[in-house]
């Protein structure tokens, strides 16, 4: 007897629905083992990670704040991945968006510039992110260079550019030599939704992005083309869909969303430009995109879930002295399980006896 993987005749809908849940369950189990190895009570730790943040208003708002960039970026990435274009440099596009938007904030600082400043910043962030994402996309389309490697290399470049700006020309003269710009003026700040709270306008923008993606993917020719090019490249060629065109388009959209997320983060919760504005949102968004099965609604849920792990991770570090890196391990394991479980939508295991194999073969 032998266990073999074989393709299902039809994709399994049941597994498509339950696979993220199975993946999460397996991740929690693995994490419990890890907590035991770290010498912590696993039930207590999981409670701090996943239940405590849901019990008070401040953490709930904080989850929404953290989910905002994750969801926005993941929506853009899902378009890329559906079209089989591998943008993994969203982190860099986020940073460039933050830099471009901050440029307007820094230049208008202390002037009597009106309420056009924030919209201009958001626009600049989105445009800069899109242009930055178009570099690897053009390299791929024009020269055939792997977009995976080029988009990732540009993350490091963007990081260094931001570092240079906040340590050099944009440094706050009154900032005691800390590498940061001055606090943005009120007109250059994303307004909060509840007075005194943390929830800000960006979360509404993220919801708008989810809704638009839902319509674009489900109801437009463009959404259809993206899905066909990714799932059946040959069929797409016969249908006359231009794959190169779609690579450029999906990269531009995902870059714009990452850039927008970056400037919203800087002009919202952070309030100034500094190094380390993102705890790896651009990379975590990759997990969000897959956990949400590249579907807008799924991404919204997945984004909230991963935001929960960020908050839970911070609390677990404070209350239980669990290292912050556990959150990253958790995210990595989760992505593994999600991918593994998704495999069973297309394939299934079957026991075959060797003799039968020979008979057919």
């Amino acid at each position: 007897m032998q266990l073999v993987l074989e393709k299902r005749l039809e994709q399994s809908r049941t597994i498509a629905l339950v696979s993220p849940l199975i993946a999460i369950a397996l991740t929690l189990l693995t994490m419990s083992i890890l907590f035991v190895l770290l010498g912590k009570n696993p039930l207590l730790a999981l409670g701090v990670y996943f239940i405590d943040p849901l019990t008070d208003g401040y953490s709930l708002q904080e989850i929404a704040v953290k989910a905002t960039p994750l969801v926005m970026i993941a929506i853009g990435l899902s378009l890329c991945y559906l079209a089989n274009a591998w943008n993994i440099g969203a982190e860099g596009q986020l940073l460039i968006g933050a830099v471009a938007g901050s440029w307007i904030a820094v230049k208008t600082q202390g002037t009597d510039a009106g309420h056009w400043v924030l919209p201009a910043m958001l626009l600049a962030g989105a445009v800069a992110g899109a242009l930055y994402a178009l570099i690897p996309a053009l390299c791929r389309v024009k020269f055939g260079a792997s977009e995976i490697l080029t988009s990732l290399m540009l993350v490091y470049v963007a990081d260094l550019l931001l570092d240079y700006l906040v340590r050099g020309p944009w440094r706050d003269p009154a900032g005691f030599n800390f590498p940061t710009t001055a606090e943005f003026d009120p007109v250059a700040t994303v307004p909060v939704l509840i007075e005194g709270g943390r929830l800000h306008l960006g979360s509404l923008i993220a919801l708008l992005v989810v809704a638009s993606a839902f319509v674009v993917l489900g109801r437009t020719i463009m959404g259809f083309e993206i899905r066909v090019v990714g799932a059946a490249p040959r069929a797409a060629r016969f249908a006359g869909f231009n794959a190169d065109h779609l690579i450029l388009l999906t990269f531009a959209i995902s870059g714009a969303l990452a850039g927008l997320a970056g400037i919203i983060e800087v002009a919202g919760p952070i309030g100034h430009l500094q190094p380390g504005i993102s705890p790896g949102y651009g990379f975590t968004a990759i997990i969000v995109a897959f956990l949400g099965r590249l579907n807008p609604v799924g991404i919204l849920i997945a984004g909230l879930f991963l935001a929960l792990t960020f908050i839970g991770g911070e609390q677990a570090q404070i209350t239980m002295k669990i290292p912050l890196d556990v959150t990253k391990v958790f995210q990595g394991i989760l992505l593994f399980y999600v991918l593994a479980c998704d495999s069973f939508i297309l394939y299934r295991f079957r026991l075959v006896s060797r003799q039968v194999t020979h008979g057919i073969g």
Partner: protein
Amino acid sequence: MELVEAIILSVLAASTPLLIAATGELVTERCGVLNLGVEGMMIVGAACGFGGAWASGSIVVGALCGVLAGTALSLIFALMTLVLAVNQVATGLALTILGTGLSGLIGAGFVGQRITTAPHLHIPLLTNIPLLGRIVFGEDAFVYLSLALIIGVWWFLYRTRSGLILRACGDNHVSAHALGYPVLRIRLLAVMFGGACAGLAGAYLPLAYTPFFIPGMTAGRGWIALALVVFSSWRPGRLVVGAYLFGAVSILQLHAQGAGIGIPSQFMSALPYLATVIVLVLLSRTRRGGSTAPATLGTVFVPDR
């Protein structure tokens, strides 16, 4: 003269991890598997390598720990992509994310600790030859090992039957399977070799390059190694040239920063990454039409029966 010698020595040191990691990935990719998790395996290799050496006081034990850690992670990758037929790009990314977290977790205990790095070869007389002596006869063991490794891989790929079979699996897995070769088993070995090399390359950093471990110390070297494999057109000879060229770029920018020419240090630090992008563009351009990549690179293989 001494400056030239110092520069060449540091170029060799900076190139060695790139060369080792890229050698492993070259074999993996030649077999048709694209493992994007090199960065993750390297950083865990660095953490485990340092931990092993720090606990045991032996560089060899440290290097072995790095190799084991890299191999263990590559087994997860193999389980996902070979057994469960999961997309290789996504799995590789997952491996890098997991590796980054794991290395922080493992390394947390010994951040701030120091070890004595791997000793350099010293042969009386030979090592004392001006200029060439220290460069040829005064390296640490990893440098010689990396060169032996790439020569061995060249010999294996082009001069042995097993190497031919491995390349066949990469170029046409259906035919290789039809001829009765166990494609998935061969790929498993290739992936494990890649993991072992990545782990060793990571371990090199705290064992020979700097005497301590810092989280994120690989700083994208795993990704540059991946780019080097593309740069080399999947050929061992060109891989050596590429690795030393990249080592040179990263060292020269350091010296330029030190010399205080008026360019901000961040721009110089960005050079290796920008160089990677430019090289990828130039090389891919000259090869339009006929790609030299293994034909089944990155595609899933589920044997039918």
